[in-house]
């Protein structure tokens, strides 16, 4: 049984709707959540965390299950098993860093206050300093200290790395690997630093946006995604690629770059030999760029 299940989630916020989001997460997995701005990544994470509710009166649907605890039946147990680091600090900015652990840690099962203060010390954060006085990177570190102070099963990170210095970012990714190494924990991390995510994430949830609807464009391993795509650079005059293979195109000064997608047909069967030799594997960022540019 999967550690976390998101079943047919549909959530409406204002005029925007997340539609039929379905995925499972096994223990020991780091799931990267990517997509253009406004596609619903934060909405999805907030719904998983519970700050957005599945309101059946408002025609929301779906189920969230963590460690066999359904959100709507066992809200307390569900939430006790989740830890989070959010882009927007969820704590009252009038509070002090130390006060956060003392005030809110009390609600979490087995919250270790000494560990929280020790981690604050390790991250160089004065517990008596107000949250409003901390830099964005320090706020992220404070949240990380809080998240690591109780035994959660699922860790959610909403764009944490952008405000971290390069040195700490490396430590942070190492920490993620350690968190899931026992196969009992899982991580969901959303990030615009796709090139970094490519090296840390085991699986990918790529969300797309179509007018006022957010949907899952791809869910699976990164290798699986990359295996379906190739990049091909050709002179501008050459235009003999079958149209059904072209997923995106970019014109440069002297040549054109094409992103090709298999669509059920092997490249070596669909393209001439000289073109097949020129094919290269694209980076994840390139796939995203071409596909989303084409749809824009």
């Amino acid at each position, binding site marked *: 049984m999967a550690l976390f299940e998101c079943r047919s989630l549909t959530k409406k916020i204002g005029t925007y709707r997340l539609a039929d989001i379905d995925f499972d997460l096994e223990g020991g997995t780091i799931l990267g959540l990517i997509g253009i701005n406004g596609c619903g990544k934060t909405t999805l994470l*907030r719904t998983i965390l519970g700050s957005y*509710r599945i*309101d059946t009166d408002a025609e929301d649907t779906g189920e969230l299950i963590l460690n066999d605890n359904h959100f709507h039946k066992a*809200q307390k147990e569900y*939430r006790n098993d989740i830890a989070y680091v*959010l882009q927007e600090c*969820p704590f009252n900015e009038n509070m002090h860093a130390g*006060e956060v652990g003392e005030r809110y840690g009390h*609600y979490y*099962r087995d919250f270790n206050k000494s560990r929280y203060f020790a981690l604050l010390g390790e991250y160089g954060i004065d517990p008596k300093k107000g949250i409003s006085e901390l830099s964005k990177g320090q706020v992220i570190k404070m949240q990380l200290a809080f998240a690591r102070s109780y035994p959660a099963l699922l860790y959610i990170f909403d764009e944490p790395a952008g405000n971290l210095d390069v040195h700490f970012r490396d430590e942070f990714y190492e920490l993620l690997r350690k968190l899931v190494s026992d196969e009992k924990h899982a991580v969901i991390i959303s990030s615009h630093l796709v090139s970094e995510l490519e090296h840390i994430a085991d699986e990918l949830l790529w969300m797309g946006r179509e007018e006022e609807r957010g949907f899952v464009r791809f869910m699976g391993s990164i290798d699986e995604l990359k295996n379906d795509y190739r990049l091909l650079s050709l002179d501008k005059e050459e235009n003999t690629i079958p149209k059904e293979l072209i997923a995106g195109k970019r014109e440069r000064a002297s040549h054109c770059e094409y992103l090709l997608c298999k669509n059920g047909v092997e490249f070596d069967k669909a393209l001439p030999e000289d073109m097949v030799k020129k094919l290269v594997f694209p980076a994840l960022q390139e796939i995203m760029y071409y596909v989303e540019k084409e749809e824009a």
Partner: protein
Amino acid sequence: MKDYFRQESIAFRYMPLLYLARILFAALMLISGNIQWCIMLLGIMFSLGLNYSTEEEYLLPLTDEEYKKRRLCRVLMIWLRYLILGTGGYIMMYVLSSFDNIRRIISLRPAFAIVFFVFQMLLVFEVLLEGVIGKGIKLSTPETVLRHIHMIIFFVYGIAYVRGSDTGLILTENETLHIVIMAAAMILIIFNCIKMLHTWKVEDYAPESEKLFAGGKKA
């Protein structure tokens, strides 16, 4: 309630100056006389502003019932504070009014003053509920103005009170009429409060600054 005092003791250790400010404010409430209601409204805004609800409260491992109890306790504790201080202030005013050199005396008749105080406290309760669990106070359409007409009545009487006028802005000395108007407004407040408590459903998180005065705009 135990949890509320636990949080207050934690806050005291980290922000002792806040408590000094609260003591000064309490003293003001006791001696401010006719403008006590102004101090009270400023105090509510300060309390709500300093202790605004954040996303963390929506993430805590609490059931909906526990969450509601927690928020209601916050409303009640702030409200009780004002009730005690307000009552203390009135007692002080009546005691001090026996001294000729004290200017801040109640010029309106005691019955009216008591009704005004009760009205005031009910309104405070409604404002707190709106700020903590409600959808905000908005006067942007005729319907919402009608819904909050008692607040306009409150301010009219409040201004009259400050001026120490028996007729105030209502242009009549008929105390019974004034009391009837305030009683009607009180019934509306009670109705609004009951409706809010009865229909209260834990909703999606929305930033507080967009909630209280802009009318429940979602994040």
